[in-house]
């Protein structure tokens, strides 16, 4: 049975439906990327799946149970979420932020247990932020902040990681660094990973399956080799591209058609 089952889901904000009738299943240990134009419903899907926004129709089951019946605390044990990079408020240290991932595992007045400390330390080791432990978030670069938020999600110890545009606002080196980290977590920690992503090449390089949204419905779905085609990209994004295989990985890549030509 799939770990996450999305069944004919429709959802949106303030009574406006953004995604319509989306069905999708994510297996344990799978890396799925949601792609699409701005406003196509990528973020909405990521949020609706974990019950952060209301849905108007359909059902989402996680680990066999309907997410709307789980409550935030029990849902946090199954799904960890990293939102789009936001400006931090108040001067929390990196160590404090990562420990916030343990919230759902403790009573409200309990001190952090040895298990909590160990989970946070392990999460910081995986994301290579141990040296930043005492630093304030405002002192970090974008790539470092993103690693701290992923550490917080890891400390949560949930089988599924959902990330909303983890590469946005990051330079090219940090983008690759974050995706390599996600791929390692998928392979070595058996995490299921689902990202909303706008960079097709990045998603095609690391995800095992791509889901293209257009106008709030699924327009294409499958492994990168089958879905990243010039026809699909023109149909979904309205952009003319050439497709070629990456010279090292063999994964498909898009390059803008027309670039280098004389106007």
């Amino acid at each position, binding site marked *: 049975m799939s770990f996450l089952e999305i069944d004919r889901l429709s959802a949106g904000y303030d009574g406006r439906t953004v995604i319509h009738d989306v069905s999708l299943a994510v297996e344990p240990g799978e890396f799925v990327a949601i792609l699409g134009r701005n406003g196509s419903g990528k973020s909405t899907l990521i*949020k609706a799946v*974990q019950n952060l926004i209301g849905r108007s129709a359909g059902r989402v089951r996680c680990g066999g149970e309907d997410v709307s019946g789980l*409550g*935030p605390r029990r849902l*946090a044990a199954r799904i960890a979420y990293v939102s789009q990079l936001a400006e931090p408020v108040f*001067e*929390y240290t990196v160590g404090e932020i990562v420990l*916030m991932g343990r919230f759902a595992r403790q009573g409200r007045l309990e001190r952090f247990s040895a298990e909590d400390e160990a989970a946070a330390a392990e999460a910081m080791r995986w994301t290579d932020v141990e040296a930043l432990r005492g630093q304030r978030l405002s002192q970090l670069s974008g790539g470092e902040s993103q690693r701290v938020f992923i550490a917080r999600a890891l400390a949560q110890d949930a089988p599924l990681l959902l990330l909303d545009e983890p590469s946005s606002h990051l330079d090219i080196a940090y983008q690759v660094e974050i995706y390599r980290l996600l791929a390692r977590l998928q392979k070595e920690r058996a995490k299921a990973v689902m990202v909303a992503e706008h960079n097709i090449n990045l998603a095609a390089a690391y995800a095992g399956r791509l889901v293209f949204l257009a106008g709030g419905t699924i327009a294409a779905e499958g492994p990168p080799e089958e879905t990243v085609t010039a026809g699909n990209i023109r149909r979904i994004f309205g952009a003319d591209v050439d497709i070629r295989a990456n010279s090292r990985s063999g994964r498909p890549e898009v390059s803008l058609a027309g670039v280098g030509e004389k106007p």
Partner: protein
Amino acid sequence: MSVRSGRRIFWAVSLFLFLAGMVLSLLTGPVMTTPADLVRFLRAPDPVHAAIFVDLRLARAVLAFLVGAALALSGAILQGYFRNPMADPFVVGVSSGASLGAVTATLLGFEAAAFGFSGPGLFAFVSGLAIVSLVYVLSLRRGGFKVETLLLTGIAAGSLASALTSFLLFMRSDSYDRAVFWLLGSFQLAEWSQAAAIAPWVALGLAGSIWLARDMDLLALGDETAQALGSPVRRVRKVFLALSALLASLGVAVSGIIGFVGLVVPHWVRLLIGPSHRRLFAASALAGGTFLLYCDLLARNLLPAELPIGVITAAVGAPFFLYLLHKKR
């Protein structure tokens, strides 16, 4: 200096200042008393000194401490609530709403005391809570509620309440002297019954906010992230809004509007011991109470006539605030 030892110093200094402030409050006043008088009284109590030390000075000091604690805690809650260190009880309209209630009761001559509060105090308490409820209901929209809408609604409602207060005072300028107590704040009328009336609520406010302090930490990451981490955000927000309104209304109900404490004390404390809310709530209550204790000492001793305490809180608080702000940069 490590962070932990910095926190120890903070607690030690705050406790020392609190105890010293209590002793100073007992020793100063219109009747000259010496430490020897206090020691003699503690060994062999007599009715005259009991009236001075216990009924007048201790009651006033305890009340000032409780109100300071309530206002600072209310401010600490609201700053976390709005993720904004510039928030205080004025931004949700509670202070202005409560003082409108008090002034209205004063002008109507409604003086009957109940539950340990004076008539205007009771009006202040009820209208403070009423205006926050109104602000909350007005900021609910189809499909949910936005913190930004609440903030703007609160500011608008507070301005409206202030305008109404000014209008009432303009129409009934003969009552200005009685109303000014509520507008500038004072502990001149402090009594044990008032301290007893608000103490349980302040304790409840502190216990409730510490119970949900980790949820407040998560809110700093954004509502969606907080919920994804396991916090029931909507319920948590309701409880915190109610607690902050309760605490601020209580303060106005016994001593009138006292500005600056709710804004500045939590800010100082955050600069000194960090943003983690469990510590912040407890430390803000202690520091706010101690701060107001000293402000009241100044208010009643600086000049032959007693000064409104709101004047002192701003005059003492603002320079110290600026000093900390620049030192930290």
